[in-house]
């Protein structure tokens, strides 16, 4: 079922966030990504939504896919070892003619068992969740975790993104941050888990591009215990962000300078302190540099970040209108949902666009 070869792909991406934490239903993001229909080829579409489970916001929300009843049984047996399942249900959907061959879609709201925390005393609770998710995805034949953060979820599958959104009834969810992806994979193997966004904890990544440094990024991550089983760029980007921001505690703007490093010539002309910092970042994190064309929208509970490769080989446009920040592959996909934003700009190579959730919001 899962292709074990590296999978390059092209794509459309879009993200919308209210920095005030104002909740938006899914229609705006669906309209935006639908506008870029021709950047996708119907082999994958998906969305990430933040703020959708206020009632269960203290539980890790595990969105899962099962290819067989056995897959579901195996996964539930596995979950019971690590977690207390507080609540679970089928992920609601509606009939859409274009969406075929669906896996069983289920969500579990869980907390980590006390005795597991005791057993893995040198792990944080989040490390335990990461470990469990990776183990499920790597070892269980017919089960796959699509997202594993709190108060958020990933909805994705094989189809055009607008059909996937309709299928998952996204108009009925309310989120302060939405990202979306329309996929144009350059191979034909299409499976639901392989659609984007890719999620780990509350990180989600939608990505357009092909990372020519994939081989070393993957080997670099293996130093830190990340095993890339998906063979996609998006997976590698997600783990790198998790490593840099969550584990190494780098601020996001510094992490962005690792992933999309400034050129040596530019570093040379920086003031002393900054130059030393940048030199050290490049020396230390050379294996984390993402090289090749990419544009990425990263989502998390606290922020949305847009990032382009270091010489801007893929399109990315951002806009701001009052509390809303938009990031998209194309300006048209922004203007179709916000015709006259206060500000629109083309995102510069290697310069992150960061939208942050205001403290008291959400």
């Amino acid at each position, binding site marked *: 079922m899962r292709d074990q070869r590296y999978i390059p792909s092209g794509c459309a991406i879009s993200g919308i966030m209210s920095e005030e934490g104002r909740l938006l239903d899914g229609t705006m993001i669906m309209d935006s990504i639908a506008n870029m229909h021709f950047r996708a080829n119907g082999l994958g579409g998906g969305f990430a939504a933040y703020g959708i489970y206020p009632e269960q916001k203290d539980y890790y929300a595990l969105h899962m896919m099962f290819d067989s009843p056995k897959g579901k049984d195996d996964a539930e047996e596995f979950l019971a070892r690590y977690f207390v399942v507080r609540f679970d249900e089928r992920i609601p959907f509606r009939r859409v003619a274009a969406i075929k061959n669906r896996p069983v879609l289920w969500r579990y709201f869980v907390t980590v068992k006390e005795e597991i925390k005791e057993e893995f005393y040198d792990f944080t609770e989040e490390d335990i969740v990461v470990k469990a998710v990776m183990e499920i995805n790597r070892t269980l034949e017919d089960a796959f975790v699509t997202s594993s953060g709190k108060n958020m979820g990933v909805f994705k599958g094989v189809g055009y993104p607008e059909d996937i959104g309709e299928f998952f009834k996204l108009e009925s969810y309310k989120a302060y941050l939405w990202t979306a992806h329309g996929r144009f994979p*350059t191979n034909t193997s299409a499976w639901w888990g392989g659609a984007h966004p890719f999620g780990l904890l509350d990180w989600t990544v939608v990505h357009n591009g092909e990372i020519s440094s994939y081989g070393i990024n993957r080997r670099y991550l293996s130093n830190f215990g990340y095993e890339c089983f998906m063979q996609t760029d998006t997976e590698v980007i997600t783990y790198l962000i998790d490593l840099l921001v969550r584990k190494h505690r780098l601020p996001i703007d510094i992490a962005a300078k690792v992933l999309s490093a400034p050129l040596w010539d530019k570093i040379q002309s920086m003031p002393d302190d900054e130059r030393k910092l940048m030199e050290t970042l490049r020396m230390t994190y050379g294996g984390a540099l993402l090289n090749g064309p990419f544009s990425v929208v990263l989502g998390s509970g606290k922020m949305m970040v847009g990032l382009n490769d270091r010489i801007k080989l893929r399109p990315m446009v951002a806009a701001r209108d009052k509390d809303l920040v938009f990031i998209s592959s194309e300006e048209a996909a922004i203007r179709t949902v916000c015709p006259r934003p206060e500000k629109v700009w083309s995102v510069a190579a290697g310069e992150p666009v960061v939208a942050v959730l205001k403290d008291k919001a959400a």
Partner: protein
Amino acid sequence: MTISYLNKEFNVVRDDSRCIKCQVCARQCANNVHRYDEEYDEMCSDGGDCAACQRCVTLCPTGALSVQRNTSQLREHFNWTSDVQRNIVKQAETGGVLLSGMSTDRPHPIYWDRILLNASQVTNPSIDPLREPMELRTYLGRKPDRVELDHSGGTPTLRNPPGPQLKLEVPMMFSAMSYGSISYNACLSLARAARSAGTYWNTGEGGLHRDFNEFGPCTIVQVASGRFGVTPQYLMAGAAIEIKIGQGAKPGIGGHLPGEKVSKSISETRMIPVGSDAISPAPHHDIYSIEDLRLLIYALKEATNYTKPVCVKIAAVHNVAAIASGSVRAGADIIAIDGLRGGTGAAPTVIRDNVGIPIELAIAAVDSRLREEGIRNQASLVCAGGIRGSADIVKAIALGADAVYIATSALIAMGCHVCQKCYTGRCNWGIATQDPNLVRRLNPEIGARRLSNLLRAWSHEIKELMGGMGVNAIESLRGNRHHLRGVNMSDTELKILGIEPAGG
């Protein structure tokens, strides 16, 4: 003395219709092959022992000369080839160990030629290095596991700056060749070229001639088992210190500079009496274990106040991965690995041709091992031994090296024709000799320029290859085996190299 059963290896063939009897050949040949016969007014090329060094051929103004294998044919035999027979005859006549110069000339597999590189098509764009930046800068030395920041002062500052590093503008350095094994002018050429290219040359075990102190910032000073020329000033003079444990051409044995090469200048630099043999023992007699290596590494770091990275150079032998890993844990900041096809000024032929493993397999195994152990960042990896061109360099880096050492190719750039007679001291090109008349033939200005040209040319080619792969910084190539594919290899070889077969 009885007659030798050895036939001449080479004949010089002279085209008399072109020869103008200018006697350049006679003056240039230190092996006394050519002479002018005044009585018959004729040039003869029947004396001495031609090494096929091509000096006369190159300098003959009319192109009258060519060197050819002795055409007197032995009866062919697959097992008893002419080389085999020659070796037996030599030893029957002398009772000695056979010596050779340069790297092994046996047909061991060259894996570089079985590895092919990737290029971008459609899904990602290739990058044109003439229009876009293409970065080759490389830092060698220990890197921290992570960067820790101090946010107390507003703008973040570094809490754990990395240790001392070597900064290379091109991912290639000149490998260790001692003053003694090569000439003053050859050393000077290397030092000048290293400085102008933003890279490093290496003293080998010859010490640092006082004239070369000015090149300290682009010099790696070596500490080998003989400790020749090692003083506190010497250690402080270089940009890095290299502990030489082994050499690819002769793993497991030491070195021997014969007394006749130990001139006044060499004696001063090595701190040994004029005319005495300079013998480097096979092991360091203070290193009989990995713990002992750690002591020497830290003694050198203490002596230089932790301002210089310490490199440990080892030969690629069977358990190279474990040795490299141990050396990193013992405190080495850089590991240089010298492969089976590495060069030498002199080595017993039997060792040169039979001991060690190919560098490609060694580099791949070491890089993989260090990554498995999560200590790859703690030391940089330098690949040495038989690097012939930019493609070899790109493949070495993609397998996991941070940079490469080059030596034979540098010598060729200066005029060497790989005649493999370095140990005779009669190098007609002024490189592997201490004879002042021969040394003078190598103009250090020209030598440095030819070396700089080579580095520049290879840099351009590396950039072209990287651009084709769609990466614009060398750190994205380093260890990126995804861009390599193998042909004509067994599954086992592919697995050790960590690469897919072509088409896979």
